[in-house]
């Protein structure tokens, strides 16, 4: 009974916090709401006319939605890089950052699920996929694995921070014996969501571009670069606009994680490029299309040739301690690394899988305005969710939100 009362008061208090804020905050939320509405409008058009309003065709049957989904799974998985040292190794530094990281994971997972739903041809029969009610093709289909691990991870990432915040809200310490097992579990889980998502593509013998053993590990490396890079940027913003204290030491430690992951990612990229171009086979054609274009069709060229230099530049800059410890350089690096990996692990990965087609047909893919609208809408949704979560969490951590403060 008492718990319920506390919970009710927490909801009321957090509603109070998220509806109050500076002018900038309101402007930000209004902007996000507007973009979300536009996205919803685009989605309603898609619902009415079917997926034909997107750029996808029988030749390239996955596009922007699945690309973003793939990338965001990586962002979600990256929260683990912060969870581990904080909860398990008792590294006090990370304690504040980790709540932010987990909030980011929750937002990213919600976006993932939204992208999957947006990509479905029949959202009205999605209940066919609910285990127990529909028919769940487990364990044969990797997609069912993905549904399980993603939802499990979402659950973990909601419950752990919620427990901690709930305790802090009541002015009590969170018991480590309760959350540490959960935290350890989520460490393994994060690796799982990313590997399983990679296996989704890796397991298709029909698509040689994906059917390669390095895909999974490379997913992990790029995720552990892009995710924490985003966390650094978010922490920088939070540090600037709120009273929430985040020490330089924390950011520097995360920067270390980003650097190592980016270096490993680069090594794997070189290995991949070597394999595709040293002794090119019939199966290297997708890579050729991606990097050089085939038969004069070269829609992805500008993208990939933006991504690769950005990736290399960021990795090189980060490698030097002097540069990395300069926050201006660090934030810049994180930004370009994030963009680079978004391109590379997004449509730089998905689209070439379909080009050339099973019989060598080269049909290109360009997203339509509606597709882009829905995509932006879902990103806005993610940002919206994250802002709400972060604002509440920060309020509690700063002690502004407290049970029975008024009484």
């Amino acid at each position, binding site marked *: 009974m008492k718990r319920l009362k506390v919970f009710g008061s927490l909801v009321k208090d957090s509603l109070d916090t998220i509806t109050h804020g500076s002018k900038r905050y309101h402007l930000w939320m209004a902007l996000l709401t507007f973009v979300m509405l536009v996205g919803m409008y685009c989605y309603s058009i898609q619902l009415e*006319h*079917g*997926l*034909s309003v*997107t750029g*996808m*065709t*029988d030749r390239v*049957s*996955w596009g922007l939605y699945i690309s973003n989904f793939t990338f965001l799974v990586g962002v979600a998985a990256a929260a683990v890089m912060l969870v581990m040292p904080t909860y398990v190794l008792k590294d006090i530094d990370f304690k504040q950052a980790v709540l932010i990281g987990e909030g980011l994971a929750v937002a990213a997972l919600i976006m993932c699920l939204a992208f*999957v739903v947006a*990509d*479905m*041809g*029949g*959202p*009205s*029969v*999605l*209940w*066919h*996929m*609910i*285990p*127990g*009610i*529909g*028919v*769940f*093709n*487990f*364990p*044969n*289909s*990797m*997609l*069912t694995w993905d*549904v399980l691990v993603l939802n499990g991870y979402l659950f973990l990432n909601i419950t752990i921070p919620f427990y901690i915040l709930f305790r802090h809200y009541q002015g009590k310490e969170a018991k480590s014996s309760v959350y540490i097992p959960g935290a350890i579990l989520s460490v393994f889980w994060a690796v799982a969501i990313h590997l399983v998502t990679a296996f*989704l*593509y890796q*397991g*298709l*013998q*029909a*698509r040689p571009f994906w059917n390669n053993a390095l895909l999974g590990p490379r997913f992990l490396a790029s995720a552990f670069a892009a995710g924490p890079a985003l966390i650094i940027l978010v922490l920088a913003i939070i540090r600037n606009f709120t009273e929430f204290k985040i020490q330089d030491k924390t950011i520097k430690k995360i920067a270390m994680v980003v650097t190592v992951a980016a270096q490993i990612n680069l090594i794997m990229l070189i290995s991949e490029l070597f394999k595709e171009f040293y002794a090119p086979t019939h199966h290297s*054609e997708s890579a050729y299309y991606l990097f050089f274009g085939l038969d004069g069709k070269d829609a992805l060229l500008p993208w990939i040739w933006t991504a690769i230099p950005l990736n290399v530049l960021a990795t090189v800059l980060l490698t030097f301690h002097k540069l990395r410890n300069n926050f201006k350089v660090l934030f810049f690096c994180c930004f370009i690394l994030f963009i680079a990996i978004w391109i590379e692990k997004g449509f730089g990965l998905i689209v070439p*899988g*379909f080009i*050339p*087609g*099973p*019989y*060598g*047909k080269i049909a290109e893919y360009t997203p339509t305005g509606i597709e882009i609208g829905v995509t932006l809408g879902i990103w806005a949704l993610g940002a919206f969710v994250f802002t709400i979560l972060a604002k509440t969490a920060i309020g509690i951590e700063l002690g502004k939100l407290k049970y029975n403060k008024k009484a």
Partner: protein
Amino acid sequence: MSNNNKKWFSLNLGRKEKVSSGSCSCGKTSGGCGTSSNSHHMTDDEFAAAAINASIGEERTKDGFEQVFDVKMDRRTAFKKLTASLLIGAGAVSTSCSVISGDESREKSQIDWEEQFKGNYKLMTDEEKQATVDRLVRSYQLRTGKTLSMSSKNAEEDVLFGYAFNISKCQGYMDCVNACVEENNQDRDSQMQYIRIHEMKDGKGFNFNEADDNYYHEVPAEGHFYMGTQCFHCDNPPCVEVCPVQATWREDDGLVVVDYDWCVGCRYCMAACPYDGRRFNWSKPEVPEAEINHNQHYLGNRMRKKGVMEKCTFCVQRSRAGKNPACVEACPTGARIFGNLLDPNSTIRWVLENKKVFRLKEDLGTEPKFWYFMD
């Protein structure tokens, strides 16, 4: 793969062996595998054990069996209805509850309701299959005033369909493509075609990269030869493995089919097919009323809706009625041969035993039941 030492193909014909080894090629839940109701229960029990092991819950064994809503209304059924209705929104509900609606529209919405919440065809009993077919026929009648015949005929025993394509004979006339579109009620707007005819240059071998599968000129063009592709009805179909909801499966006579009403439109199967065999309804399929083929099969050429996957079914409505697929019948050159692989006197068997046949991308282990040969 196959233990019986047949020289002419390496399909695994002994389906029982496969079941006992726990890897039935039609997917994990082998409910649709057995034709007799006996084997049906057997496989279901086996599957139940596996499902519990995988800790999904024993409820799965029942999936798709509780089709008739008015009869059973246990907790699960109620929950099923509830969840689904939340998902489809208020639209269907409001129509089905409308007070002013007459008998016919009441019946129509009743049908729509039951169709929306029916189970997976693969797991249905024969009566349930008949019921859904009856509903679809009635619904068509209510909407258009016309009748159609729809079959729910199951696979026959001792039948395994196979196909052979004579590359020497094909002249690229595309009569097969047109016959297929007419027979199978494909969307005319997007010009969906199951068959692709690849025009290749003489002297370059089977070079698909330089082939043209979208030509608009007089055929046969000088210095070219032609080769058709479609769904090959793989005996080990990757498209079936990946489907998250088992909306696509391999029937006992070897046909790989899709339940258009169960498909959620994720297009994972499309990515998994190495042969470009699948087609997706990107928008609502349109077929002019006058051109509709009214002789239909639930798993074959019945009308599709938007957002679902479809593919060549070897014209299940024809092949299970003892006829040749439309493409075979339409081909003016006799390049297409279809028949029962288990019948030693069939033409297809003669071709496989006497011609030098090959299949595409054999290295992928998909075991297509579609062979090419030359005179």
